[in-house]
């Protein structure tokens, strides 16, 4: 990959940023820049020597206006929890860290509408909403560090998508800054506003390539009064599907999560992280596990539904054993088994992660196909877990360290396989830097052509998050 036609940052540029932000919100020390250059699983590393931390929309606007004129490439960064290298510089792009824009601006309890700045940490928003009986429509394993602006820009999915849908539905409005510094105020707070073009969607999921999200308006559902969790052990994937089918029918309106994990995935939490498996009736554990959560407004009603569902599942021979609870500490422990897989697997060494959507018929087959294909003694684990209810599986292949030949056996094979099965090569993690060359496997050529048109319109100099989502269009640098 070649560095694009951008200018290199000069001392004059640094002086400008210093006068704009002051020395505390401008980082040029190489050691301090390091954590912004590397992604959280340490799979990509950029070489930025300048990190900016704006505190207001006006500052973001001033930065972009300056960079656009100067042809300086920038990369917006939120919590840096992405898995496709979308928020790290590839070369020396200036990092615009949104961390300091972390104010909650308005909470409308009756309408369930929250307005806040892009740099608010997801978990902080969740805690704030709890006090007024509301909740965030999304929840992720990375909630303690990811920022809402990043979630919106990547259209993050997560554990509640099954119930509340994705962010295209839950984000009512955004404020974003375009590449030239113009501020687009699309801070709609209405549930229904069918007027003109729905511009907010341009900034949801475009991974900072069309503009930088600075404020968001979120539709927040009421906090459920009753949450129940069933954790189940199963013998085969076929039975996992049957259980899902039964859960949809029996639990319908209160079902809020339906997750699956295979044996090797749960082993990560149990062996790598020393967590306890709450199911003990099978000495060697189970081939598959499911986590089924219900959220509703009536404790007794929900409990009764869930236990009758479990009884049916046992009578039909589709589950082997399980546990049922509404006790918060136990619920959190069980969720931990699922949520910490992604962190725990890093202890294996190097991890190839694939976040894919597949039709149910081939949902787990992808793991079996990989196990068949990669019979290499260096491989520690090939396993799958994920949001079954959303048709989204996370496949992880771990080895002690990165081997080029293992990578070559995996890619592009897995993407081709997914594409053949009519799946998506990125269900919720985006395209970022790591998947740009595979975009065509999940997008048609007409879609990609229109994406280029939009990119050219919104960011003619290509300064916004270059090398991400779309392959760069090489244009000569105009002096």
């Amino acid at each position, binding site marked *: 990959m070649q560095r694009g036609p951008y200018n290199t940052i000069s001392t004059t540029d640094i002086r400008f940023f210093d006068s704009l932000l002051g020395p505390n919100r401008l980082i040029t020390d190489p050691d301090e820049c390091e954590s912004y250059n590397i992604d959280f699983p340490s799979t990509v590393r950029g070489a930025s020597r300048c990190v900016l931390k704006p505190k207001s929309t006006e500052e973001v606007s001033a930065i972009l206006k300056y960079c656009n004129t100067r042809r300086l490439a920038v990369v917006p960064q939120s919590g840096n929890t992405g898995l496709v290298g979308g928020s790290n510089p590839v070369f020396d792009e200036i990092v615009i860290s949104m961390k300091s824009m972390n104010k909650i601006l308005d909470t409308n309890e009756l309408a369930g509408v929250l307005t806040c700045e892009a740099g608010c940490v997801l978990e902080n928003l969740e805690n704030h909403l709890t006090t007024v009986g509301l909740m965030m429509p999304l929840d992720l394993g990375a909630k303690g560090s990811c920022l809402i602006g990043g979630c919106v820009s990547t259209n993050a999915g997560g554990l509640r998508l099954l119930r509340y849908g994705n962010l295209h539905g839950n984000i009512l409005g955004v404020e974003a800054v375009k590449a030239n510094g113009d501020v687009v105020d699309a801070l709609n707070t209405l549930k229904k506003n069918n007027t003109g073009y729905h511009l907010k969607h341009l900034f949801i999921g475009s991974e900072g390539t069309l503009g930088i999200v600075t404020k968001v308006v979120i539709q927040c559902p009421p906090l459920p009064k009753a949450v129940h969790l069933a954790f189940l052990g199963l013998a085969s994937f076929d039975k996992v599907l049957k259980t899902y089918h039964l859960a949809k029918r029996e639990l319908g309106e209160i079902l809020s999560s339906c997750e699956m994990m295979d044996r090797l995935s749960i082993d990560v939490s149990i062996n790598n992280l020393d967590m306890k498996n709450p199911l*003990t*009736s099978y000495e060697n554990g189970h081939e598959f596990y499911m986590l089924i959560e219900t959220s509703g407004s009536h404790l007794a009603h929900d*409990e009764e539904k869930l236990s009758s569902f479990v009884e049916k599942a046992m*009578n039909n021979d589709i589950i082997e054993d399980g546990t049922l*609870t509404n006790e918060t500490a136990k619920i959190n422990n069980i969720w931990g088994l699922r949520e910490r897989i992604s962190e725990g697997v890093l202890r294996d060494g190097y991890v190839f992660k694939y976040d894919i959507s597949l039709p149910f018929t081939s949902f787990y087959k992808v793991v079996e196909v990989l196990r068949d294909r990669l019979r290499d003694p260096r491989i520690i684990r090939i396993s799958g877990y994920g949001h079954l209810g959303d048709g989204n599986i996370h496949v992880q292949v771990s080895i002690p360290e990165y081997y080029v030949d293992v990578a070559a056996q995996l890619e592009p094979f897995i993407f081709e396989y997914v594409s053949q099965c009519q799946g998506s090569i990125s269900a919720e993690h985006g395209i970022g830097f790591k998947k740009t060359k595979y975009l065509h496997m999940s997008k048609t050529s007409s879609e990609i052509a229109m994406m280029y048109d939009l990119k050219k319109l919104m960011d003619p100099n290509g300064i916004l998050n270059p090398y991400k989502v779309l392959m760069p269009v090489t244009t000569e640098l105009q002096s």
Partner: protein
Amino acid sequence: MEDYKFLFKVVLVGNAGVGKTCLVRRFTQGLFPPGQGATIGVDFMIKTVEVENEKVKLQIWDTAGQERFRSITQSYYRSAHALILVYDISCQPTFDCLPDWLREIEEYASNKVLRILVGNKIDREDREIPTHVGEDFAQRHGMYFLETSAKEAENVERLFMEIAAELMEVSENILFKSILLLW
């Protein structure tokens, strides 16, 4: 579908720490886990046994003894075929609570449910409830009675096997009666 002729739901209740989970684990896995933590919510599992050459599948529900960890609806009582009410023979308060448990059973369970009173921990030397006291209580309330030790594997297998056999007989009688009625 697995091959079995009978399917019964067996629910264990009783005070915290009387050994419900240990009885279940002894029966289903043949082990005695030392330092078993309190059950939170309810755990459920399946064990298939053979009675008179017939496969009987037991669906076992192991419930929390501690008030704050118990479910609020007790919905698991409703479809139970057998209820095992457990106390600890070395702990008088667990025996004193039996009438409370019976009231709950009356309220939530079917009146046809098979009820078994179990005095657990007979391996202990500090017995507080003599066998005949337990027996009397069971008789007065129309319950089967058995003393067990999950630790020493005493009467545990027998407990579940007798339940399976009894339930099988009851359901065959019902079957027989209904055939007679059809005639």
